[in-house]
């Protein structure tokens, strides 16, 4: 293989691999931080034990994830310099700013307050301790905001000029932070994160229900069942809310994309030639050589509607956009076409995997309608598990019930796949550009890093990340199996300690590593 090509390919593989891996933990961290904070707020306000137990249980799973998210996040910050030094030099002036802001405004929040939250249960007044987890949650939001602003600059450069030395120079920070590309991406990504967190909660609660069903009625712990029930409903609502958010923002992002990156939308649809009205493709097999689809199955007019909210507007096709770019930047038009197969299927995979969980959330919400638990006629003892009802009088057959819980458990990971595919689509659809219209990916790699070094680092990351994945999954399974804990909520608030108040150093800690 051509060395230059191997160079770029290895750098891209490393970026793709480490980023997708890192991004398995990010959506879980973002959503679980907020959900844990919500549960703890419910406990502080109502003092109901089930909220305390839920906080502890989900908080523990959250901590396992955030440890991995933080650790793998380190790589993200440094690999721009390692593998993409030409890129870093070219855009550092613009791209570095949101990255530095992320560290200063978001990372410090997250990492400092996470320590306070973990160890602060018996050190801080209840409300201050609650404030800590909210700070962590706000930190995760801010963090995603700055990263998405930086990424949006790559999708749609804005607020810059090219200086005399050939490097991009920031001219307006607000155009980078608040351009429509950024806003749409933030909304869409956060919504998708909550589908992940919701489905995670639903799946694990479903497992706990399945297991608790095997216990005889009299052995069931009322508070634990109540905790599972609350978690289940919270997860279902979260996934639904995330799903609605993802649909609405997906619509916005699509329309922004048609304007700013027509190639990406055309690639997502396998639309080779400009069409009016443009059809939405359900299935297609295409060929770059022929510049058309060999086989396709379409819904007429839908793509025009999704792009412009009317059924007749023309949507630009792959060949037309590529020819225009080749006249503008030189070279063959084929050079400006991203991998259509990957874009097409990643786009469909994102929607399918994301929406399966949302569909299951809707079904779950209907089947476990709250009324059944509140209405006195249907009120059941604390120890009873949620039934799956079709109507007021009829519940699902035992066989269907068991399978419904199993399916709920299985969908746990689907939105994670959807998220990963969404990122693959976003980044692949931009190729061959690393910064759309300004710099190609081939020009962005470090000129001095050897292929050997790249192979070493890719191998090291593959082995390390693989091993950590095994450890992480086994730990998660262990803690899920352990189920909701027995720990009673603290009976009194920790006393505020002043500099002069007497204190005993050797008093046992409630939490220690």
């Amino acid at each position, binding site marked *: 293989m051509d060395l230059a090509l191997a160079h770029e390919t290895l750098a891209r593989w490393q970026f793709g691999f480490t980023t997708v891996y890192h991004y398995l933990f990010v959506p879980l961290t973002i959503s679980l931080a907020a959900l844990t904070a919500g549960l703890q707020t419910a406990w502080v306000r109502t003092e109901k034990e089930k909220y305390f137990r839920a906080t502890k249980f989900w908080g523990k799973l959250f901590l396992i994830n955030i440890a991995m998210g933080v650790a793998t996040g380190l790589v993200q910050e440094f690999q721009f310099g390692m593998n993409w030094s030409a890129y870093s030099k070219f855009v550092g002036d613009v791209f570095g700013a949101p990255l530095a802001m992320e*560290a200063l405004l978001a990372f410090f929040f997250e990492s400092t307050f996470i*320590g306070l939250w973990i160890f602060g249960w018996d050190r801080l007044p209840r409300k201050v301790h609650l404030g800590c987890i909210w700070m962590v949650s706000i930190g995760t939001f801010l963090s995603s905001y700055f990263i998405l602003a930086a990424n949006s600059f790559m999708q749609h450069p804005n607020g810059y000029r090219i200086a005399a030395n050939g490097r991009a120079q920031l001219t307006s920070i607000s155009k980078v932070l608040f351009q429509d590309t950024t806003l749409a991406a933030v909304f869409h990504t956060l919504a998708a994160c909550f589908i992940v967190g919701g489905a995670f909660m639903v799946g694990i609660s479903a497992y706990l229900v399945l297991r608790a069903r095997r216990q005889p009625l009299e052995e069931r712990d009322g508070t634990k069942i109540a905790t599972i029930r609350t978690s289940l409903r919270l997860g279902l609502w979260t996934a639904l809310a995330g799903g609605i958010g993802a649909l609405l923002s997906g619509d916005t992002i699509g329309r922004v994309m048609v304007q700013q990156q027509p190639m990406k939308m055309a690639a997502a649809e396998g639309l080779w030639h400009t069409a009016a009205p443009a059809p939405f493709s359900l299935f297609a097999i295409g060929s770059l050589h022929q510049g058309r689809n060999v086989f396709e199955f379409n819904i007429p007019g839908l793509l025009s509607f999704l792009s412009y909210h009317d059924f007749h507007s023309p949507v630009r096709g792959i060949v037309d956009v590529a020819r225009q770019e080749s006249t503008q930047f030189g070279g063959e038009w084929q050079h400006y076409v991203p991998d259509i197969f990957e874009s097409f299927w990643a786009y469909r995979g994102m929607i399918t995997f994301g929406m399966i969980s949302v569909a299951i959330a809707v079904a779950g919400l209907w089947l476990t309608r709250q009324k059944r638990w509140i209405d006195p006629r249907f009120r059941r003892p604390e120890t009873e598990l949620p039934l799956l009802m079709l109507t007021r009088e009829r519940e699902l057959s035992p066989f269907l019930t068991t399978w419904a819980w199993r399916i709920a458990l299985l969908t746990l990971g689907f939105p994670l796949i959807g998220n990963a595919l969404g990122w693959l689509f976003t980044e692949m659809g931009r190729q061959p550009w690393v910064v759309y219209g300004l710099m190609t990916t081939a020009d962005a790699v*470090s000129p001095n890093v050897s292929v050997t070094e790249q192979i070493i680092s890719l191998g090291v990351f593959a082995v390390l990340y693989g091993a950590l994945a095994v450890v992480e999954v086994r730990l998660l399974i262990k803690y899920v199996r352990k189920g909701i804990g027995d720990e009673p909520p603290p009976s009194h608030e920790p006393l505020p300690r002043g500099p002069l108040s007497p204190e005993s150093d050797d008093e046992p800690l409630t939490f220690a*590593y």
Partner: protein
Amino acid sequence: MHLTDFWFLVIAILWIGYFFLEGFDFGVGILVGVVARDDRERRVLINTIGPVWDGNEVWLLTAGGATFAAFPVWYATLFSGFYLALLVILVCLIVRGVAFEFRGKRSGRRWQRNWEHALFVTSLLVAFLWGVAFANIVRGVKIDADEVYVGGFWDLINGYALLGGFTTLFLFTFHGAAFAALKTLGPIRARVRRAALLTGGVTAVLASAFLIWTQVDQGLGATPPGGLGGGWSLAALIIAVVALVSALAFARLQRDGWSFALSGVTVVAAVAMLFLSLYPDVLPSSLDPSWSLTVSNASSANYTLTVMTIVACVMTPVVLAYQAWTYWVFRRRIGVSAIPQ
């Protein structure tokens, strides 16, 4: 003062802060492997830094981000040039980060021992490698006219850099021992104090040699044009050595607070000295001085620096305030009886 100089100062402060804070938690990580006798003692040591290590590490991320934003060329050349060394550092920091969180998540003895070994080895390696990296930065590396590092991995291994590595390794271990002496109770406290005296003694020899070598090489005749001259770095050198010796004396007198404060001053002065002898270069070229990266040719434009200055001026006091508060909340000493089963 020009904004580029200001940002050089900011980045120097971020690295100083990073080494001051993460320095002692590297040291504690090393002590877990050599000083603690049993499981509970190891846990006492780990818990002295448990609530704060994550916040400490963000100083590194901020230094990295600030370098990217303020000196993109420095960021790009440095991290692509030190590729494999940085890879090892990253791997260590990843393993170290999960080791804290995962160690206690299962009760098996082998499981916990493995994570403790991981914590020890990674803390040790990183403490060593940062010294190697900074020694190379100060000494200069093979940078060509296109701002590209053209040396290889083995060019980074040389006598001066190795001395730098051993200096930071022992300095951080000493700093960690001083911190642990301040934060623990009982027999473990006596043992870390002894470790402090021992590592402090070795540090005094290594650090003096390394800093004097730096001063002779960089401070006297070889000051880059526009540099500060050798006076400032000499002052920092003297402060570092005096602080180190006093820290040792206080450790002997069992004045833990003073000893830790002064080991901190040593770290601050030593790192400050490296940056003082570096200025106005950010990465000197050993091939031709005119190819060196400097604060002016490696920096971002004025607008970015202005934006970043505003953000830094608003946020830094806030960050410092809540990080200080964390140390205040967890200010108590812990002993073996504080560790729950």
